[in-house]
């Protein structure tokens, strides 16, 4: 009796987590494995994927061709710049928000999070209207006498829009770690003759660093694999990895090459994130 009940007790956690496990396996692991297998399948432009033939050719192609190098490099430096800007804007923003009083705090927090409620595609089109040659930004620049500047379909447009999309993902973790901060510690530092700036640097910042770290990991990961923004604001010429994958799948119909690029991005992203985590 006690033996069976202890067995049952041990199995309960498994049963409870079963729905999530099934979902996770069916929707993430299985497609990932299928993609991985696909990336090793041989491809013939005339007949398509050869399911029984395996090759490393797609990977050697990606690693050897400078065309792909440039795209990977662009993707990662854009993601890094977006992350940096999000830290510089998001961390102070979260700090200022946390020092505000209600109701302003709640209202402005909602304003920060509101973009999450609007589709990325809609926001991207919004930015393309603002940044286009006839858009508001160039109109304003024209008023001050600066001739039309090409912003749309450049890295700048992609970065600006990505920062806008990613900012909530930086603000939320920093905000969370600020909530855990004992409000007394700032006063304690002030009472020990620290200036407000020293207090911020020596007392507040080290305590919210975990929040900034996790925020930048989220932002970097999402920015490096972003598709809609570079697709709509980078145009046809300015490619990032996710848009290249899309092209391989839907225009070239070379699914194995697309899968190989996608997996390379996944692994590269993992390496960057893990080493960043180790570094800080």
């Amino acid at each position, binding site marked *: 009796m006690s033996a069976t009940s202890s067995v049952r007790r041990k199995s309960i956690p498994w049963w409870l987590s079963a729905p999530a496990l099934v979902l996770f396996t069916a929707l993430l692991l299985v497609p990932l494995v299928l993609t991985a297998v696909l990336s090793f399948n041989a491809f013939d432009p005339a007949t398509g994927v050869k399911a029984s033939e395996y090759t490393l050719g797609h990977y050697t192609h990606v690693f050897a061709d400078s065309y792909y190098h440039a795209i990977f490099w662009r993707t990662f430096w854009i993601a890094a710049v977006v992350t940096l800007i999000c830290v510089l804007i998001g961390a102070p923003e979260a700090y200022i928000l946390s020092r505000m009083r209600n109701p302003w705090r709640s209202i402005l927090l909602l304003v920060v999070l509101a973009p999450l409620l609007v589709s990325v595609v809609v926001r991207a089109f919004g930015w393309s209207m603002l940044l286009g040659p006839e858009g508001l930004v160039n109109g304003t620049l024209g008023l001050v006498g600066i001739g039309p500047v090409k912003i749309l379909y450049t890295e700048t447009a992609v970065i600006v829009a990505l920062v806008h999309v990613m900012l909530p993902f930086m603000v939320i973790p920093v905000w969370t770690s600020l909530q855990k901060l004992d409000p*007394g510690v700032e006063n*304690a*530092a*002030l009472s*020990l*003759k*620290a*200036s407000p700036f*020293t207090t911020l640097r020596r007392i507040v910042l080290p305590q919210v660093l975990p929040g900034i770290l996790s925020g930048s990991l989220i932002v970097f990961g999402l920015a490096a694999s972003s598709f809609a923004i570079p697709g709509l604001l980078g145009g046809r010429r300015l490619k990032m990895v996710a848009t290249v994958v899309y092209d391989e799948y839907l225009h070239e119909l070379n699914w194995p090459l697309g899968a190989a690029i996608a997996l390379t991005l996944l692994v590269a992203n993992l390496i960057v994130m893990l080493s960043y985590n180790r570094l800080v």
Partner: protein
Amino acid sequence: MSFLQLTDVTKFYGSTCAVQAMNLSVEKGEFVSLLGPSGCGKTTTLQMVAGFEAVSSGRIALDGRDITHAKANTRGLGIVFQTYALFPHMTVADNVSFGLEMRKMPKAERRERVAQALGLVHLEQHATRYPRELSGGQRQRVALARALVIEPPVLLLDEPLSNLDAKLREEMQFELRQIQRKVGTTTVMVTHDQSEAMSISDRVVVMEAGRATQIDHPLQVYEHPRTRFISTFVGKANLLPGKVTTASSTHTQVAVGALVVDVEGAQFRPGAAVLLSVRPEKLQLVPATQGRLVGEIAERFFLGSQWMYRVHTSAGELMVLAPNDGRPALVEGERTGVDWPGHCMRLLPADDAAPAMLDAEVAA
């Protein structure tokens, strides 16, 4: 001129008055407690002295220097916070050292002073630990060491012991007092715990609703409370409503029901409604035929070193504390006499309007 001087210090939050015309002078080396229930303005007062809250009107002077509007980080006061507010990402030694570092003290001297301060609070062994690895009492000591190491002119303690369990709190009370005596730092403590305030302070400031209603030595506050509130907030009291019958220049005669007593002092006119206040431990249980009143034990509670009785008498219900001195305790329903020494009676105004505080007393 005293060392720390608060003159008519007032704090408004919008239209609500948190602290009203607070006057207090603290002498050098003195240990003063601000005592009162929550919301009485004691913490606000401390925050104004610390510089974390702006003063609405009035003046705060430290050692002759006006600090009313000085920034918190220029006052140089040592503060122990209720939550301790230790820096969680720094070791104990770094926490204590932070204030010295801000004063640009050379590293070698800093190390020496930190070791000294940690020695003072018996934490030499824990210098390299982080606050999260310490117990509540140890964190408390770190906070104290951090505040004292900068040798502040005034040490401010904001409910420093309220987060400790009862036994530890008692130990820390005496240790706090010992350390304060040893280093001789002028100290202002905020507390809602009357026994804490009494046991370690030189003087107690009792606050109610934003006003200081009595500033006195602990014994004086206990034995001569100025208001009904103080008599019940600081210790327990039996309050019997009565009427003044005659008043001479030194004595007042009061009738409480059939009981007529003669009380020292003459602050009331004949006919005034008063409360006769006697502390429970001043009452003695005597044989039923003797004493001022006769009554019946309604309930008894065993408190360890003492018995507490509720006694029904003709003058009303009385609480009596009797030492558990080995004699058999009285049982419920037993008849008993109740007596008390004449000099232990106090008279308080029945309507609890605190008599205006005399200036001489404020400056004391």
